């Protein structure tokens, strides 16, 4: 539910949490990202960082430059300037990321978990079953059939938290309990309402359905796309997965290794929330790819 007025909650001496509502309605994330853009545009004195999520935004501030009370006033001013959610237009690049679905490496992760922690089925079969899909192949078709909205880049460097923009491609699935102790770098996972891509090899709780051969961040800034940035994606960007086979996976992996890989990221569109909602309303939402 969207709150009538956003809630402002303190996080110690230099953070404030702005909550727009208490559920996973995508409008609440649009509001959080609208406020992020407005803070950057406004260059509000004392604001040093933002950290959006499903229905909220963390703002980090420097209390020598702005008091907590004044920050709340500034945030309320910027939020009222956003207008209604349908009025929002957000900068949004579209990144085409190669994805090998039902790949051997994530199969190894599941096997490793089954051996060390608890036996479990192959993740794509499990996710297909809980979502009522025919099989894992349909899961791959559906997952690659939509643009995925980057709700936030969070948790570990460059890790995108994404949700399907096309409601016909929504996938939900429970997370691992207990979590995995090891996940392959580049693994594509689904959990809750979200998809993500593992940017560090490590623990994780999402069901693994594929793997991308391309890096989502690079502290050495080696590939051309990282010339002016360390992470590939920003919140409010969109990701479209392009299914590839093993041969192409290896080809791209080699081009990443030798530094010649060219990312396909377009930046000529803005995302209109109003137009998006109109399109969603026009769909037969029971349709499946």
């Amino acid at each position: 539910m969207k709150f009538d007025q956003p809630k402002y909650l303190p996080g110690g001496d230099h953070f404030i949490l702005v909550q727009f509502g208490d559920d996973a309605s995508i409008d609440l994330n649009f509001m959080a990202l609208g406020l992020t853009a407005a803070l950057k545009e406004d260059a509000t004195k004392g604001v040093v960082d933002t950290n959006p999520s499903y229905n909220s935004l963390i703002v980090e501030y420097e209390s020598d430059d702005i008091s907590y009370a004044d920050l709340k006033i500034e945030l309320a001013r910027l939020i009222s300037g956003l207008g209604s959610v349908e009025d929002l237009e957000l900068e949004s690049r579209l990144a085409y990321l190669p994805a090998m679905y039902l790949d051997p490496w994530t199969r190894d992760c599941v096997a490793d978990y089954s051996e060390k922690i608890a036996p479990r089925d192959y993740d794509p079969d499990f996710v297909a079953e809980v979502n009522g899909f025919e099989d894992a192949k349909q899961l791959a078709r559906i997952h690659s059939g939509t643009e995925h909205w980057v709700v936030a880049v969070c948790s570990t460097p460059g890790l995108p938290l994404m949700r399907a923009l096309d409601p016909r491609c929504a996938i939900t699935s429970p997370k691992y309990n207990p979590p995995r102790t090891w996940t392959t770098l580049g693994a594509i996972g689904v959990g809750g309402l979200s998809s993500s891509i593992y940017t560090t090899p490590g623990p994780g709780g999402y069901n693994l359905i594929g793997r991308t051969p391309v890096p989502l961040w690079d502290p050495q800034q080696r590939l051309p796309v990282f010339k002016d940035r360390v992470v590939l994606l920003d919140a409010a960007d969109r990701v479209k997965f392009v299914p590839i086979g093993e041969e192409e996976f290896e080809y791209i992996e080699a081009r990443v290794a030798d530094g010649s890989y060219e990312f396909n990221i377009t930046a000529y569109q803005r995302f209109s929330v109003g137009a998006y909602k109109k399109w969603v309303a026009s769909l037969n939402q029971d349709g499946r790819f």
Partner: protein
Amino acid sequence: MALNIDVIKAGLETSVQDFPGRYGFWEQGFPPSGPFDMWSFRLANILVGNAPEAAGLECQFMGPTLKFSDDCVIAFTGAEMNATLDGETFPMWESVAVAAGQTLACGFASVGARAYLAVSGGIEVPQVLGARATFHMAGVGGLEGHALKDGQSIAVNGGAGVPGRKVKQDCRPKIANGKQWQIEVVQGPNDDWIAEEGIERFLESEWKLQARSNRTGYRLEGPEWIFADKASSKGPEHGEHPSNILDHGYPVGSINLCGQTPIILVNDAPSAGGFINPFTVPSAAFWKLAQSKPNDIYRFNRVSVEEAQEMRRGIDGLCVEDSIE
């Protein structure tokens, strides 16, 4: 000749850090990193005459053994690690001239947990997102992305320092071995998920620091939490356990309730996740976390946002040239 420091023994976890760390990249998933006890760290830089942003070393629990290739001025602050320079006792909280070829050897921390070493000129490692601080979980910053290893060599920028400067006694953090700490907390952001008696219980109880604690999180052991009705009557998108919430951003310092285990999210913490944060430890209390050891006991003392900010200003006011005698 450029100064190098040879790492003879790396110590338990010695890392390159700078102040204030990798600040302002929370939205890309980068934690601030930086020195855990920024009070002691800043005073070490001031002692040797460095700029505030100069990189130094954070030494955890047991410090390193280092050999200096050339003359320089160094200062050691924070935890007492019984350091020696070529076998002679090395004074803490004081700038000291070191001659080429001398070796500084540290032992276990006998008082406090983290010591800070500043070298005149500052440690030279490449900057990542404007900082030299090490975030070793992700292999970012510092010396090749990680804590020091035996046999490595650390480059230092050229810079003159003045030996014989001391930090005034009353300008240093009061690091003690009492094993009991009063830690300030600000209530929120998710205190409404805890019942009123749960809030009182948190503030009235003793919390023991668990051994499984590091620069990512400080795990605490204590009584059961009492959740508000809201924590169980929420929508399914929030998750099953009362401590689960739909993923949201975490303030640095927040006390992240993971099931029944509170984990204080510190310098290298994840920026977001699906657990509630009923309280937040403000930056002015971080030096106490940094200087405590596993099995130490915390009691939490609630302060307002404004009081926490005033305390931080108080510490900033001591990290200045006036604190030197």
